[in-house]
């Protein structure tokens, strides 16, 4: 069981990135950062101010961004290349495949504004398929941090990891839940609370919603097992199966399409190793749209209340 911070302090995962990158840059001169005209949004700006000679803002040119990063990596640098998640993974997908994933070069693709977090800007600036795209690339590791502290850990782990890593970040301010001293290992889950009624797997910044849902369920006498999946690839299949064996029902929660994300990877793991009923909470094959982030979460069923409803239904279906 993990003891979480409960100060109510809020911070975006991208802010965690900006600080982590700066610290890494101070510790290791091989770290370089690249951006495509969005350093103030992705938070690479701090690094750029401190290390201008190691910072390349290539302008609005995402294809060039990831191929240049690959060239830097081929010569021993550890490039962190950032832009909005949509422009990195959708526009530069072929560059990421050809220049980064295929030759397994040491490029870190760290993106902001994933999911709905470019809320007002609508579908063109949101991506709900980036996890699906990145996890289908061989050699790619995919990490989706849940808060600013976990982001800092993920960024440090990504730098230490030899090979391509995709780190998916958001703009939305979310509660700080983790403590910096907590264990973070790529490919390992974190159990937030134990229970035997139903398993809830959650990735990314919806962790706070899932925790709230589990607390509400507890008041109704439902013991939820809540597991944070910060690494989508490689997936910790063993932990998922172990929990599924215990509870017999799994719910996944993600700010992403249910096609290709955490819901899909969980379905794959369960179908192959221990089939149990599964509810996938996520965006149901739709594009993003403009709106307040709370409204968007509500419309697409991603709030604590709606997760609670799925928990209730799961428990009822077991009886």
């Amino acid at each position, binding site marked *: 069981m993990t003891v979480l911070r409960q100060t109510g302090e809020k911070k975006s995962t991208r802010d965690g990135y900006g600080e982590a990158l700066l610290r890494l840059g101070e510790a290791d001169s091989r770290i370089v950062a690249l951006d495509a005209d969005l350093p103030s949004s992705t938070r690479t700006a701090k690094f750029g101010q401190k290390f201008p000679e190691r910072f390349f803002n290539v*302008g609005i040119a995402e294809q060039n961004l990831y*191929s240049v990063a690959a060239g*830097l990596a081929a010569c*021993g640098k550890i*490039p962190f290349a950032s832009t909005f998640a949509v422009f990195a993974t959708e526009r530069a997908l072929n560059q990421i495949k*050809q220049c980064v994933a295929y030759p397994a070069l040491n490029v870190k693709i760290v993106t902001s504004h994933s999911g709905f977090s470019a809320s007002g800007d609508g579908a063109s600036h949101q991506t709900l398929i980036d996890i699906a795209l990145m996890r289908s690339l061989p050699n790619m590791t995919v990490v989706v941090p849940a808060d600013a502290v976990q982001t800092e850990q993920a960024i440090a782990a990504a730098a230490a990891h030899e090979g391509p890593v995709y780190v998916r970040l958001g703009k939305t301010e979310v509660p700080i839940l983790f403590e910096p001293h907590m264990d973070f290992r790529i490919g390992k889950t974190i159990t937030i609370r134990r229970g035997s009624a139903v398993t809830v797997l959650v990735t990314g910044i919806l962790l706070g919603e899932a925790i709230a849902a589990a607390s509400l369920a507890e008041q109704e006498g439902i013991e939820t097992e809540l597991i944070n999946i910060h690494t989508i690839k490689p997936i910790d299949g063993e932990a998922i199966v172990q929990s599924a064996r215990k509870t017999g029902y799994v719910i996944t929660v993600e700010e992403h399409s249910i096609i290709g994300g955490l819901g899909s990877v969980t379905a794959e793991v369960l179908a192959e190793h221990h089939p149990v009923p599964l509810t996938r909470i996520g965006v149901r094959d739709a594009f993003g749209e403009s709106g307040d982030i709370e409204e968007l979460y509500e419309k697409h069923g991603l709030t604590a209340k709606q997760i609670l409803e799925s928990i209730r239904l799961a428990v009822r279906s077991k009886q």
Partner: protein
Amino acid sequence: MGTENTIKELENHARSVRRHIVRMIHDSGTAGHYGGSLSCVEILCCLYFGWMRHRPGDPEWDERDRLVLSKGHAAPALYAVLAEAGYFLVEQLGSFKRLGGILQGHPDMKLTPGVDMSTGSLGQGLSVALGMALAGKLDRKNYRVYALLGDGELDEGSVWEAAMAASHYRVDNLTAIVDRNNLQISGPTESFMRLEPLKKKWEAFGWEVIEVDGHRIGQILQALGTTDRVSGRPGLIIARTIKGKGIRFMENKKECHSCALTEEQFEEVMRELESG
């Protein structure tokens, strides 16, 4: 630039490399990219046998000059040159495109000793070369980076992203070479997507541009020398070439972009190349 002897030696390499290319593609049992491989033979021979600092016995040598074959479909030419240089045995050319071999249809840096970047999807190599050049500047290394581009490849918008960026960052340790054979799969580049005035375009992007006959060793070496000496901006060599160069019935034919030879044609071509 280049003594008579150097030029003779490089011409011999070019003859030998052409034979390797034809045999390699023919032996692969499938259609292959004869045209664009044969057009850049002299360019690659000048780089690997007369210009670049590299160590076939130590492919990962940190100080080496790098080549990014952005027109990755000319892999047969690169493989032939690397084998001839001693990165691997010439006999291994027979494994081209074979499952489990070290020679993929397009270059793979993880599989083939001497290949500095995995390429094949067009329009990306110049960006990668720029990244390598920037790393060299950061580390204050003396290596140079070369990128070989096809002319049809210049249709890709990402090439121009890289062209703008290389000039912006003033990388003078980068030389790009365009294999200007005037043909892409559909036919003449100028009929399908006009590139001219090509020299003016690159100059407008801030590059030092030199035009040469891409089959004349002396001219290529001289241009490499000139672009190496340019300070404060990248260099571009427009190498005017003939697609399918060296095989008479292929020269300047769009069909030779990717094609297969009959046994009779193969025998005839090899005889022609032996005597040439």
